[in-house]
Each structure stands twice: as C-alpha cells, then as structure tokens.
C-alpha cells in the first residue's frame, strides 16, 4: 500500500521472507523474547565466537513490525561485538522515537515511521531486547509494560 509508509514494500518483503529464520545445531547463547499481550514470541539463537556474533537464527511468531525488524537486524549484527551491538540497540531505540535517519542502521531506517506509532514501538524493540538478553545470558525478556 503506497499510502502506508510503515508497511512499505521493504518491510513487507522482510516479513514475508525473513532472513535468518530457523535454528542452529549448536548455539552458545539463546533467549526468548515475548510480548504475551500482543502475542509476539521470538527465540534467538547465537554463536558467539571470540566475543563477536558468528551465526544468528530466530524462530517464533510475531507481527510484521517485529518480524521485519528481526530479519533486518540480523544482517547488521553479524561480526559485531557486544559493545557495538549495545550501541546499535540504543541508536535504534532513538531512531523509532525521533524518526531521524541513522545511516549506520541501514534497512532498519524503514522503522523511522514508528515515530508516529508510539503504541507499536515495542514490537520493533522486541528483537533488540531479545538479542541483548541472549548476549547477557538471560533466558527471557519482554518489551511490554502495558497497563490493561
């Protein structure tokens, strides 16, 4: 839909055909991120080699925004150190809030549209939170702090 910038073609492509979907035969780190109120659930598996991400796979069911973000970030984080990933996650959080372009984040700039959708930002933040949880050795995380 040309008039829906959030659901632009690149986002829908990543949603329909996400990169890195699957699981690893052997992983060094893993975590599950879940937003139970929305129904989003992602599991990330990693091989961390010499303090850098070697391989990454994910599975689970999530909305288009969470799935596309997951797919896009995989490309970006491979070969990166923990510190560098922490920096990217913080820059991504700023990007979805401010809507300002960040060239270091590549395709993820599609999520700048979330500046106008505060209620959907937690969807895009879930993959990042899950990745950080995996690296920190935490089994579970969520980006839902909803009042209901």
């Amino acid at each position, binding site marked *: *839909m040309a*008039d*829906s910038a*959030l*659901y632009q073609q690149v986002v*829908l492509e990543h*949603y329909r055909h996400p990169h890195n979907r699957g699981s690893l035969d052997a992983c060094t780190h893993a975590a599950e991120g879940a937003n*139970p*109120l*929305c*129904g*989003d659930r992602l599991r990330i598996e990693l091989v961390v080699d010499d303090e850098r991400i070697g391989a990454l796979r994910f599975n689970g069911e*999530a*909305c*288009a*925004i969470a799935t596309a973000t997951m797919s896009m970030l995989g490309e970006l984080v491979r070969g990166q150190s923990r510190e560098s990933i922490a920096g990217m996650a913080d820059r991504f959080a700023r990007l979805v809030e401010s809507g300002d372009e960040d060239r270091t984040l590549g395709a993820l700039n599609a999520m700048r549209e979330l500046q106008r*959708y505060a209620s*959907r930002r937690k*969807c895009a933040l879930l993959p990042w939170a899950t990745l950080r949880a995996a690296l920190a050795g935490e089994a579970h995380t969520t980006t839902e702090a909803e009042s*209901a």
Partner: protein
Amino acid sequence: MNALHESVEAFDVDSVRADFPLLERSVHDKPLIYFDNANTSQKPASVIEAVDHFYRDTNANVARAVHQLGEEATAAYEATRDKLARLLNASSRDEVVLTSGTTQAINLVAYSYLQPRLQAGDEVVVTTMEHHANIVPWQLMCERAGAKLKVAPISERGELIVERFIELLTPKVKLAAVTHVSNVLGTINPIAELARETRKRGIPLLVDGSQAVPHLKVDVRALGCDFYTVTGHKMYGPTGTGALWARKELLRDMPPFFGGGEMIREVRFEGTTFADPPHRFEAGTPNIAGFVGLGAAIEYVQALGHARMGAYEQDLLEHATRELKAIPGLRIFGEAAHKVPVISFLIDGAHAHDLATLLDHEGIAVRSGHHCAHPLMQFYGVPATLRASLAFYNTHAEIDRFIAAILKVRTLLG
C-alpha cells in the same frame, strides 16, 4: 411490511450523524470510520454544548453555596441523577450514586458492601467473559478475606452456561457479579433469569452495565438485580462520569468508601456522622460539568428512542456479521443468539495489531488487543483479537468500506 422494518426505515442516520461533530473528520486523508465505540463513544453536539455552557454560564460548586450560581450548578448536577433514575427505572433517585464510571462503582460495592461481609471460606461468583474491572476488585476482596472467586463458564459461542452459573450459587456465595453485555463478544446475558436464581438464594447480584446502557433499554426493576453500574463515556456522555444503582436497603447499610466533604452530616473530632445515600458515597467535588453533559446524553438517546436505535443497530450487526463470515480464514469470537453490534475476530496468518494499524491507514478505527479481558482471551486460546464495535451513527456504507479494507490489507500481509 412489519413494524420492525418500519422502525428501521424511520431511522434517519444522516441526520443523526450531523449531530456528532467528530464524525466529520478525516484520518490519514480518508473519511473516518469510527468502529471503536465499545472503547468510548463519540459525543453529540448537545453534550459538548452542555459542558461548554456549564463552564461559561453556571460554574460553581454543588451543594455548599447559597448563592445563585451554586443553586443553579446543584440543580443541573442533581437533574442528571433524576435522568439516570428514570433511564434505569429506579424506584427512587436516592438509589443512584454518581461515580466516575463503572470501575469506581464496582470498587464502591467491593469495599463498602462486600468487604465487611466476606469471610474466609466464602465465595464470589463471576463469569469467564468479565472485563478486568469486574474481576480484579472481587479478587482483591477474596485475597484479603481468604475467600474464593468462582468462575461460571461460557460456551464456545460465547454464551454464559446458565446451569453452570446456577450450580455455583451455594450458601457460601456472598455476591455474584455478571456483565450485562460482553465488551469483547457482544453477548447480552440473560440477567433477569440469573437474578431470579440469585434472589431465590438471597445472593446479591451486581450487573456491569457499562456496555449495555449504550445499546439497550435497561429497567433495573424488571431485571431484578441488586446493583447495576453505568459508564457515562460509553453512552455518548463525557469521560469521568457514571453511576451505581443499588437497592435502597442495600445502600442504607453500606458504610462510606471515601471520606471527605459533601458526604457528612456533622464532623467532630470525637466522631463524624454521615449523610444518607446517595451523598454518603460522593465525597469531594464531583465532575459537575461532566454530569451536566451526561444529562444531555441521556436526553439525546431518549429522544432518539431505544426501539428505533436498537432495530437499526441489529440491522448493522447482521450486515457486518454476514460480510465478515464470507471472508475466508476469518474467525468471529462470540456468536451468541442475542448480541449488540460488537464483533471480535481474527484472520488466519495476520496479526491483530498489523491489521489494526493497516485499517487505521484506511481511516478505520478498530481496537486490537485483549480488551481488558485476559481470562476470555485465555478461554479462546488467543492473545488478542480485533474488535469492531458499532453505534447507531454508523452506516451500512461504512461496513462495506470496512470489508473492502480488510480484503485489501489481508492481501498485503498474506
């Protein structure tokens, strides 16, 4: 032509829509289709003007000023109590406590009526389809007292299983709390039938009327319940208004919930004597302008006529249900025989929040999520649904646009 069809045709939706200024606006450059009425309804100009007029011409505090403005403000505020009493067919205006909405009304009953009576081993009965507002206050009371919350189940169609409800009405039950209309399923519960059973056993029945009053003619005496709650902002009135109706003899024995001004007879440091109901439960300065607006909302709906409004809404419900069911992979949650125009649904392979955001781009406001009814979501085994909730100002043409938009966005996500 039968009487029903005549009344449907007599309903002039175009002129009704002209009474609601907000319905004229666009969203994302598309004409707004507001299908989120169970969340909050829009307000007719007469309500907006009543609030505006109150602040411009009448503003003063109630029940404590002898000057002219105070008299006028008090009269305007108290007039809404009379209108609510007539709307609900209460036997007396003193049975109507003005509250901020249903949540406060239920909490008032929980703390003031139930808490002093509830003991370890006692039970409170609710149903699977309750809103959190009609679960959590009872849960809090039960936890404190060591009592048990029992849940009457529903069928897959979203109807309360009445026999199972009756089975739960043991001598240990100190209160039963049931919604009149489900905010998720649209189901209209058979309150009169349930009330006959609770009365037989001397169990007070609280009915959450939040979703019912916007659609149905409610007669608390005909229903035979003991407590009935009202939410102003869902019945075309301002936010922060509502009411608790309760039988006079129940209110008379209830201690105050909040302490403060207006609810007292005499205050001494040795002890305070309290006002009679309903003012005993109305401590502090209330949302006076809001209640003046609520009075205008009640007048608006009564002038429109519940029968005509209801027949038209049933027509919308039937149309929307038929069209939605024709969409492959679409599942409707709640197919009760008696419903208001509230339809929850999901589409295979499409996430509720994605659909809601994409429909918003088409100018269509629906709610996605759990609708403050986690236990009901757990019953159906889904985290969230989409909910289209209609009002008498919605149109058949809007339903057609809504269906076309669903087909469009589903293709996008598929």
